[in-house]
């Protein structure tokens, strides 16, 4: 159960629909001649979402690799945002140059996370293409990076945080909440 | 300013005269007399202990040559603020006080600027280098009360034997800073033990002090010259002293406040306020020193007041000079540890260890309240609670390990030659 102060923006059923929609959008954009596709989730919940998207793509007949890209080393705010927590590990394919890398995150706001993720991926090599897929875009861009695929466009009160919860990471809760 | 006082109603403790009773003390023109002095200032000493002025026989006044650390003026003011009416100045000045000219300079300077009485000591050897005897006879004429190479220790036992023989001619005791340089050389920085191992600092083993105490036992026994072992720190030194004294050897010892209260664990933070020579050691050493005080083996308390300029101590540990100040905290620490916390001795013994005992060793004409003696008095409040604040020290030095300590016991007034040179602000 979410904390009582939170406002439910999207319930569990809505999340399932959104994930499906995201998979549809992605599959359509990749088309037939998609080459090697890799879903790189941004920890923590982006990784959960990436795994679910992998299943969605499989339903569309697209086989995709799945991993994670930890952006901690690429952030532009070391020291500004409270203490550092342990690094979570990056798994990207070897020989990245042939691959289409789809960065996957749960919520997009300022764009800084996406920027860091792009830089992290480029540290591994020169992928064929980088795409950005997010479950929810809540606006408030500070860097001109817009997701290629968005399932939910939400707005929230200024200063409030928009949080996605997945069963695997949040004690069985599913939904999008405003905190 | 008048040098006559009537001090009324205090508890009079005068170990030299065997007195411990309530009563009044009178000073006329700077000398104790047996009846009240008409027109003299009245001092109410009720609730206080009236002692002969305390004597600190181990003080570094740093003049000549090291005035940035302390001067005779500031050092004696610190003494007064600590309740001391007499200090014995060590000769490891710059230049070393190893000939009568320097002694005369110090005596003259003290007469002009000293807030309390200053007694001088001369070096045993030229430059305290441990080779040739200094002109001890001439220095005796200039007024020294003892010889010492303090800061250093004569390593060559034959030289020390000659010195002991020679001093007999002048009736001067030798004060020895007991440190064997082969076991504890100039790089030795703290007690050799668990903490020196863990901190990676070169150790100063107990044995380096004990071995020299042992040689002093033999030399004193052979020559008859009194040898006084300074700032004792090691358990074995107390044992050697006790055994020698039992045989009638004229060996004495002194102990400083830090060796009764601090252990080597205090150095874990590399704080240079705990870097002194000899180093603070372990709890068993503290127990042995307290035992030595309890049974009279150790008869004298002193400070080894060693001021340094702030910038000299605020460096990496290896580069810091040894030493801490002590004049303004000693009485408090001694009362706190010996009277209150550990209850090792009673007040009259404490007073003796600061008055009659050092006076006797150094043949000083003071350390007593008996009529005819110079009118030096320390008014002590053994229960007075206070907190050490190094920022208000009269000494130039701020290097104390006791900053912030809550102590019970403090001098409240210091009187030298019938004149109050310091009084605790209420």
């Amino acid at each position: 159960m979410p904390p009582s102060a939170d406002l439910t923006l999207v319930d569990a059923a809505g999340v399932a629909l959104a994930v499906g929609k995201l998979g549809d959008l992605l599959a359509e954009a990749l088309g037939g001649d998609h080459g090697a596709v890799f879903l790189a989730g941004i920890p923590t919940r982006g990784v959960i979402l990436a795994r679910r998207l992998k299943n969605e793509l499989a339903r569309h007949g697209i086989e995709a690799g799945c991993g994670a890209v930890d952006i901690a080393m690429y952030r532009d705010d070391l020291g500004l945002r409270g203490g550092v927590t342990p690094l979570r590990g990056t798994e990207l394919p070897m020989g990245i140059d042939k691959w289409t890398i789809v960065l996957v995150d749960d919520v997009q706001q300022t764009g800084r996370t996406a920027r860091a993720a792009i830089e992290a991926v480029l540290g591994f090599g020169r992928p064929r293409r980088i795409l950005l897929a997010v479950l929810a875009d809540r606006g408030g861009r500070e860097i001109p990076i817009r997701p290629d695929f968005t399932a939910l466009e939400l707005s929230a009160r200024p200063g409030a945080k928009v949080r996605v919860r997945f069963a695997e990471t949040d004690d069985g809760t599913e939904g999008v909440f405003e905190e | 300013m008048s040098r006559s006082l009537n001090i009324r109603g205090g508890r009079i403790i005068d170990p030299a005269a065997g007195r411990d009773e309530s009563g009044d003390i009178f000073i006329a023109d700077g000398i104790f007399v047996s009846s009240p002095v008409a027109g003299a200032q009245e001092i109410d000493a009720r609730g206080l202990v009236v002692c002969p002025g305390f004597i600190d026989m181990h003080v570094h006044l740093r003049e000549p040559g090291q005035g940035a650390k302390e001067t005779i003026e500031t050092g004696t003011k610190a003494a007064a603020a600590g309740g001391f009416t007499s200090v014995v100045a060590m000769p490891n000045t710059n230049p070393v006080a190893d000939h009568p000219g320097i002694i005369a300079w110090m005596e003259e300077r003290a007469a002009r600027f000293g807030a309390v009485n200053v007694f001088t000591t001369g070096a045993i050897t030229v430059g305290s280098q441990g080779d040739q005897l200094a002109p001890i006879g001439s220095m005796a004429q200039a007024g020294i009360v003892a010889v010492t190479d303090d800061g250093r220790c004569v390593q060559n036992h034959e030289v020390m034997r000659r010195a002991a023989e020679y001093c007999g001619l002048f009736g001067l005791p030798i004060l020895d800073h007991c440190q064997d340089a082969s076991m504890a050389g100039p790089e030795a920085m703290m007690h050799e033990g668990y903490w020196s191992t863990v901190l990676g600092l070169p150790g100063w083993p107990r044995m380096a002090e004990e071995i020299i105490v042992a040689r002093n036992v033999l030399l004193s026994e052979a020559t008859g010259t009194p040898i006084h072992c300074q700032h004792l720190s090691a358990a074995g030194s107390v044992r050697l002293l006790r055994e020698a004294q039992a045989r009638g050897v004229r060996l004495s010892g002194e102990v400083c406040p830090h060796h009764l209260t601090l252990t080597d664990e205090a150095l874990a933070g590399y704080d240079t306020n705990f870097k002194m020579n000899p180093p603070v050691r372990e709890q068993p050493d503290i127990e042995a020193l307290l035992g030595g005080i309890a049974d009279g083996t150790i008869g004298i308390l002193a400070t080894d007041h060693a001021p340094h300029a702030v910038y000299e101590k605020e460096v990496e540990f290896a580069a810091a000079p040894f030493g801490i100040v002590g004049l303004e905290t000693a009485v408090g620490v001694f009362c706190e540890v010996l009277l209150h916390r550990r209850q090792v001795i009673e007040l009259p013994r404490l007073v003796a260890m600061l008055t009659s005992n050092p006076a006797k060793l150094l043949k000083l004409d003071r350390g007593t309240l008996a009529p005819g003696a110079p009118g030096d008095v320390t008014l002590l409040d053994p229960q007075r609670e206070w907190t050490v604040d190094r920022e208000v020290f009269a000494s130039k030095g701020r290097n104390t390990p006791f900053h912030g300590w809550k102590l019970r016991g403090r001098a409240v007034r210091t009187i030298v030659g019938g004149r109050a040179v310091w009084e605790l602000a209420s």
Partner: protein
Amino acid sequence: MIWTRKDLLGISALSAEEIVFILDTAAEFKDVGKRRLKKVPSLRGKTLINFFVEASTRTRTSFELAAVRLSADVVNITATTSSLAKGESLKDTAKNLEALAADLIVLRHSAAGAPQFLAERLEAGVINAGDGSHEHPTQGLLDVFTVRERLGRIEGLKVGIVGDIRFSRVARSNIWALTKLGAEVILIGPPTLVPREFERAGARISHRLDDVLPELDVVNLLRIQHERQKAGYFPGTGEYAALFGLNAARAARLKPGALVMHPGPIHRGVELDGSVADGPHSVILDQVTNGLAVRMAVLYLCASVALREEA
């Protein structure tokens, strides 16, 4: 947990959790070394000063490379090139460096406690690269990292440290790291060079390498220094090598899979034979690689706190 220290002065003050945090972070940074672009922007625009009052080429190079891979700007200062040679105090020199906006200072100094002295007075993060005989924390960390990477764990292992323990900061840092993580530490060397006080820290002491060799999972060999020979701590490198050198015959008695380590530089024929240094048990070169990763981790973690305090 969150990393909260702006300085790394030694391992003795760290908790087991903090040590593991550093090791896990180092593992991530080791992976960076395998990428095409071996650099991350974490310390871009920040300044690190390698202040090596006591000389060292290998450690300094390792720290410099670690900083460069974090995109920091690096300045190297030695005792001779610094104003310390002109009599300026350590404190004033460091204050001057800070006035030049140094964010991190890596200090190697012959005086134990010197990094702590600076850390207490500077806002910059201070990393101890070796202070006298006290500690060399990044060496201790890279040593346990290497063991963990190769053997999968630290707890329950028997680790022998051989040589001049008395004067070794590497030995001390290793003793703390290993005991905190649950290993059994055995200190091996001549009685004059192995202080009994370390038993109080939880270590075992042996003066016969041959007796304990077969039970060791790791043998860490320390450099034997000529200064000790001159000061009378042991009679000579020949006798030392005969009693405590890990020669080929001794190496043959090692457990299968046992690791041979050395902080470097090695004296072939004294602490160990050339064949052992190059042999299957040796992880000496891994130590160097891991040193880089560990130092990147340490700089990254301490910077996150030091920079916060500036902001």
